[in-house]
């Protein structure tokens, strides 16, 4: 019987891959035995012992590590959700402004995109946190009476307290992601045939109505995939929360790993929580995509 050549190749490659993985895992186990750690998840049920600055659900230091990690995950979800909405609005405005007939509007939005995309996000977050928020006075500023108060500890809108860490992260992520979304939107608008613009103009529709009823609906199929990948980037970038001291899932697992020394398990939990976040985003974007396709 003749064995096909490709089958042999695959066998050899499978052998090489398993050899490499085997060596790596052997080293891992040797190292784990040497340091006496081992792998298990029982520590998740032990009291965490650290306080969290930001809690959306009731939490006290005597609660378990698992609960602390869950609070961190909820915090991540919170900041992702809000900056996702704001960045989309900003991106749509800046992206459509790029094809505006007003020269000033056009150049401001080009300047915004060119500036923000060439500066590291981490630096921008430092700016918003240390320069914009921490330099505010200690005593709250109240520009419009009791409705809004702003100090270097918190922002208070209509009785709801928001930490400056959350604000800095929210603004930083929104402005950074907004610039990328603006590029996606611009690409989508450009993908619509020029003839469509000319037709609605010749039919006497004004720019705003034409954009809303003719151009944007046709550009959505080109925009949504780009938007999805920007949202996934936003979720990944939200882990820079640790730089401004916001207790997101990464910051909490960082503290947990430093306290317990459980690097491998911590990494697995972090991966799993990101898997869920990514599935949430891609899942809802797929539903949106189907809706758009049906309208079309």
């Amino acid at each position, binding site marked *: 019987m003749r064995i096909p050549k*490709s089958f042999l*190749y*695959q066998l050899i*490659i*499978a052998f090489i*891959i398993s050899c490499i993985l085997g060596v*790596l895992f052997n*080293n*891992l186990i*040797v*190292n*784990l035995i*040497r340091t006496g750690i081992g792998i298990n998840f029982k520590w998740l049920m032990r009291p965490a012992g650290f306080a969290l600055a930001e809690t959306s659900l009731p939490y006290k230091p005597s609660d378990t590590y698992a609960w602390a990690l869950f609070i961190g995950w909820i915090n991540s979800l919170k900041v992702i959700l809000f900056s996702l909405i704001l960045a989309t609005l900003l991106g749509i405005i800046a992206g459509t402004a790029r094809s505006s*007939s*007003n020269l*000033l*509007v056009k150049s*401001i939005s080009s300047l915004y995109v060119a*500036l923000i*995309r*060439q*500066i*590291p*996000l*981490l*630096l921008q977050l*430092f*700016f918003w946190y*240390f*320069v914009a928020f921490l*330099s505010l006075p200690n005593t709250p500023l109240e520009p419009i009476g009791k409705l809004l108060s702003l100090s270097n500890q918190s922002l208070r809108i209509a009785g709801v307290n928001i930490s400056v860490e959350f604000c800095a992260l929210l603004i930083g992520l929104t402005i950074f992601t907004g610039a990328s979304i603006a590029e996606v939107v611009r690409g989508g608008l450009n993908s619509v045939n020029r003839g469509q613009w000319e037709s609605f103009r010749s039919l006497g529709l004004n720019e705003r109505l034409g954009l809303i009823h003719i151009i944007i609906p046709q550009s959505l199929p080109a925009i949504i995939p780009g938007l999805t990948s920007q949202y*996934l980037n936003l*979720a*990944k*970038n*939200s*882990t*820079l929360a*640790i*730089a401004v001291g916001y207790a997101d899932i*990464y910051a909490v697992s*960082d503290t947990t*790993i430093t306290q317990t020394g459980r*690097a*491998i398990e911590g*990494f697995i939990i*972090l*991966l799993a929580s*990101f*898997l869920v976040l*990514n599935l949430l985003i891609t899942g809802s974007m797929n539903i949106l995509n189907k809706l758009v396709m049906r309208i079309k």
Partner: protein
Amino acid sequence: MKFIKKNLNLFSLKRWIRNKPVDFIVTMFLMLLILWVATLIVSWFILEANWNVVSDNLDLYAIGSYPADQKWRPMIWMLSLSTLTIITLTWRRKGILQKSLPWIWILMLPSGLVLMAGGPGLIPVASHKWGGLALTLILALSSAFIAMPLGILLALGRRSKLAIIKYSCGIYIDSMRSVPLIAILFFGQLLIPLFLPVEFDINRVVRAILAFAVFAAAYVAEDVRGGLQAIPKTQVEAAEALGLNPKQIAILIMLPQALRTAIPALTNQAIGLLQNTSLMAILGLVELLGISRSLLANPNFMGRYLEVYVWIAAVYWLICTSMALLARRLEQELDPNILTIKSNEISN
């Protein structure tokens, strides 16, 4: 003069207000806003900003705590990098220079590593003394150098007909792309020692480079795959008809075209990689952003956040913009339409 007059007449204020009132209001509002922001910025620059924190520490920003008596080494390297960038961007080049420029670019990384780390005739300098812009550039260039071939292999692997290769490449790419970079970097610092034999000890800079490289490779792979998908099927069929084997088709026909198509996307990745090296500031390396953090912790420069951040942002902006320009230059050089024009000129 006549032209300006004519245009002013065309867009005369009255007509503008009458025909496009919203446009007029928006423009006026934006003008006022720009004026206000500009006054704020100018008054800060003139009245408040104290640039001592920048001018007193230029060496630190450039090379970190690299030994002072050896500082000419990274300085020369960075100087030649910027000269090379300017030459590539400005000179209309012909003959020898055109042929040698790619090779000089390729030589920049090894020469940089030798100059920084020490080699024949140079005193070794341990990597924990590297810092500042020099470290940022070394991190970005070396990880890009590893990530590029790895990414190309992964992209080819993902299109392979052999199931095992296809799926292992796919799993690697997708899982890397779903994890935040900081997690990879953190666990690179923490876990790489765990996966290596006990006696193996690799330093923090190398660990960071490896972590950046395995992360960036997954993104490079997707961009190259996009380029591969853009190649018309007829190209492969033509190559098969000419009797080329699969390896030759991949190397001679597919990759050159795919990489050229992928240049814009790869440029974005390279710029992203350079910006992302700033993440090492949180993980304890004193690259450009890290050094500014330690400067701000110095009591002499307490509270000078804005000056430092504006300065660092300007440096990053300059580097990223010149990378984008270099890539556009490369794209023009490789444009097939320009190539045919050139060969026509030669044959004429």
